[in-house]
């Protein structure tokens, strides 16, 4: 769900009735992207965002509702060369429990462990979390620091066309991405991190389960002899999209994780985020938390 969408049904003057005319459950990727050609399709995977959003009248169904759950190419978690591929239909629970993810991508496991509730994790999919494009989406911050690429499929002519887009360029605003209406997200590809790789995820909410982030922080880098390199920092719920924090990364890249570096990075972080006030917190508090908790996460990395 997007950040700041505090709109209640009461506010809505729109007619929430659907224009849904057709239900389609393709069994192959070709069928799916063929169907998407016309563009007037609402995609259903886990339904954990779609259902509440449609019931609250915040989204309207398009003419066709396409259930993508029966497409085999969208499932599975596999090692392909030096990349881990997670299919778009992988549920949060599957990701959390998968040995490849647990071994190589603990930061993603950590984020999944803070994701909603067991029931939602059993149904909600990674592809759905990405396409919902909430600035507070729990898996997005770890995917950013893991330098993931989003796999897209479409059928511009008569032939299946697939390509990848870095996740850092994928989001354009709350609920908005660079995916066109004719494209389907089929999975993500994540480079297997080096043995020196360290990463952390922190989610700040008012309760440990069933909460939308007030802010979230992801930090990853290779640590050798106390020096951090290949730094990637990302923040959630502090900008219109999940944010790669380049100024914070620069403040850390190639430096010893000493107190001065950590403080400089925390200040850089506070200054580069652009949060808003909403029912969960004020912008001021979010900036403070970005500063305080970036510092705490880095201290934790330095001590480990």
């Amino acid at each position, binding site marked *: 769900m997007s950040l700041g969408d505090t709109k209640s049904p009461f506010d809505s003057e729109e007619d929430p009735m659907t224009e849904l005319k057709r239900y389609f459950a393709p069994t192959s990727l070709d069928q799916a992207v063929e169907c998407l050609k016309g563009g007037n399709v609402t995609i259903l995977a886990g339904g954990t965002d779609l259902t509440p959003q449609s019931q609250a009248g915040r989204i309207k169904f398009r003419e066709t509702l396409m259930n993508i759950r029966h497409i085999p190419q969208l499932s599975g978690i596999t090692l392909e060369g030096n990349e881990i591929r997670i299919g778009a239909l992988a549920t949060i629970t599957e990701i959390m429990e998968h040995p490849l993810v647990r071994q190589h991508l603990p930061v993603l496991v950590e984020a999944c462990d803070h994701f909603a509730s067991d029931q939602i994790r059993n149904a909600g999919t990674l592809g759905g979390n990405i396409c919902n494009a909430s600035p507070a989406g729990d898996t997005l911050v770890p995917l950013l620091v893991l330098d993931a690429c989003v796999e897209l499929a479409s059928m511009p002519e008569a032939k299946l066309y697939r390509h990848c887009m870095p996740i850092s360029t994928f989001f354009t605003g709350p609920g908005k991405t660079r995916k066109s209406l004719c494209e389907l997200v089929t999975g993500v590809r994540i480079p297997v991190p080096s043995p020196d790789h360290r990463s952390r995820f922190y989610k700040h909410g008012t309760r440990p389960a069933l909460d939308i982030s007030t802010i979230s922080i992801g930090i990853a880098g290779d640590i050798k002899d106390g020096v951090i390199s290949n730094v990637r920092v990302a923040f959630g719920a502090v900008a219109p999209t999940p944010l790669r924090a380049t100024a914070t990364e620069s403040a850390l890249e190639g430096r010893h994780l000493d107190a001065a570096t950590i403080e400089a990075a925390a200040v850089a972080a506070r200054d580069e985020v652009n949060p808003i006030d909403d029912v969960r917190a*004020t912008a001021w508090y979010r900036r403070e938390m970005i500063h305080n908790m970036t510092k705490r996460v880095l201290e934790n990395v330095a001590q480990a």
Partner: protein
Amino acid sequence: MNVAEKKHRVIEPDSLIGKRIPKMDAPDKASGRTRYIHDINLPGQLHGKILRSARIHALIKSIDTSAARALPGVHVVITAADIADQRPIGVAKDHFPLKVGRVRSQRDEIAAVAAESEEIAEAALKLIKVEYEDLPVIGNPEDSIKPGAVLIHPEPHGADGTHLHLKQGTSIAHKGKPDNVAMRFDYTHGDVVHGEAESDVVIEDTFKLHYVTHCCMGVSGMIAEFDAGGNVLMYSNTQVPFLHKREFAEYLNIDPARIRSRKDGTLTFRQVHTLHDNGAYTSWGATTPFVMMQTFSSLYRVPHCDYHTAAVYTNNPYAGSFRGYGNLQATFAIEQHMDMLAETIGMDPLEFRMKNAQEAGEVTGQGMSFKSCGFKDCIKTAAGRSDFSRKFAENHANQKKPGNIKRGIGMASMLHVGGGAKIYPSDGCGTILKLDDFANVTLITGASEIGQGSETVLSQLVCEELGLPISAVTVVNNDTAITPWDVGVHASRTTFVAGNSAIGAARKAKSKILAVAAKKFDCTEADLDLRGGFVIRADSGEALVELSKLLRNLHFQDKAELVMTTFYYEPPSVHQDKGFKGDVSAAYAWGTQVVEVEVDTDTGFIKLLKVTGAHDVGRVLNRLGIEGQIEGGVVMGQGYAFTEDLMIEDGKMKNPNFRDYKLVTAPEIPEMDIAFIESMDGEGPQGAKGVGEAPAICMAAAAANAIANATGTRLFELPFTPEKVYRALHGQAPKRYWKPWKAE
């Protein structure tokens, strides 16, 4: 077993009181068989939908229902204009179910549709055209009492000033108000001026409280049908089936309290002013001061007390009742001040409380008479079991040490009615009891079961009198055509009032049975007793005859006698006088809770570590039930203190969903250590007192004291969200955080 042995069978004394007995409705609830209102569907039923206001505060210029009425499948569309003698509802009768001429708050009802399906009814609502003329919106009580504020219930109170709507309800309907004050309460005992002269130390603060709401398992609803005889049968969810007033639960008070004491630690006077957001209509929220003044005047001995309050109209949702309402708020202020006063005069907070705590035998300035009172035992027990004094000193010493994780411990106590509350001239309950020829009991009681476990406790009390197992009892409590009168399930009164009523009916039945048995065994009634399903000899326990057999003999004779009794219990309490004085309850419940927290000063996040409670419950009847009730109450108090906040801006709810209205979830529930103080109340059923509301009351106050112990920072505004705590720790005022943020 040979015949000789059987003749001399001895039944040992046994008691169900204090045992751990699963709630009688637990199997149905746990297996999903309990039917809520939305599970009920009657053949051929119509579906009702209500058109609610699209404005917060506006005049209704016109309503056009013609298109809706014309929609196939729609049976009826009604508006206020269709009901010539519409009767107002609510405490002040200022509230018409279908709004007349004006809407005053979000979701105000304008029209109602009955149709053959929910979808048709929904479609019909969209066809109703309403023209509004907007009025200024009053979003908080301070604005409501400003000179020149728009009037929310101006005179005359109706669409056109002809008072046509009053024709039927002349004596009850509200006639409008020349200002926005819905109700005032003024209470005094002693002389605060005199008290002030005697004082060495003063503390004065303003406390600001939030709106919360009950979050029931079932949604509200009603199904009605006519039977063949033209009687209306209504299914609904209510805790007051006889009064049937639906309540909506949230409230807000602003509560500036002054309290003074002498340096020897004796409280001298207390002065309180409160301003209450009544919302758009007067419901039970306006009566919050009744409960607040009990705590102000009588929790601790205070010789001079002065309390003034106004409940004022705004365009916010109207305020209703809530578990312990009034007391959570008053205790939040009073118990923080107890800690602050103790600190100011350099006294240990525990000692300061013990010095001023009430004891059995006292009659307070408000006229409450404490016949049983375990208050001091509650304080001592909760403090002892939590190691309060050592931790309090240790945490205080750690406040200034480095580190961002601080621990704190805080205490708060409460006084609440425990023997009903005579808020109406009657506070009674009736019982009808019948034994069948298998010695099964049907207990027909006026008291509703709303999940609190009253069926089980009432059955226990009856079994205790009749010497029967709990499985022998069937409770009938949900049909006003059958059950006798009861005021309602409120004021923590059911165990006490319905319990005494059930005991009364059971004793009458017992007396009837023993009279028959005495004749049969040629002895006196006093020689006999009922135990283990038998009539026994009282002295030896020797079983004389199975009760079921005796009852069968009674039934199968030419002059059959049936064991059917009725009893009505009215507690020996007093309806308060105009100055709010009088012994309003037949008994009073006490409790102390100690809260331990860990505060993360980098985030303001508070981890609730442990709650140690000691409650004077009179006597434990069902140990399993009372543990559940206390633990549930603590969690409800935890939500009130930390997470729950119904955010309202200019009359609109900003978080009308469970994503943003945050209930406590399982991982946040703290460790609990609950002790029971059994003061054996002389009037209580088997010595018990009411405890329904008690456990939710202390949490916010104790948590505030714990946060102060951890950090040295006091919080005067609820709830303690991470941001609010963090702001307070950094010297920033609380912020209504859904307002647009401006650079600070």
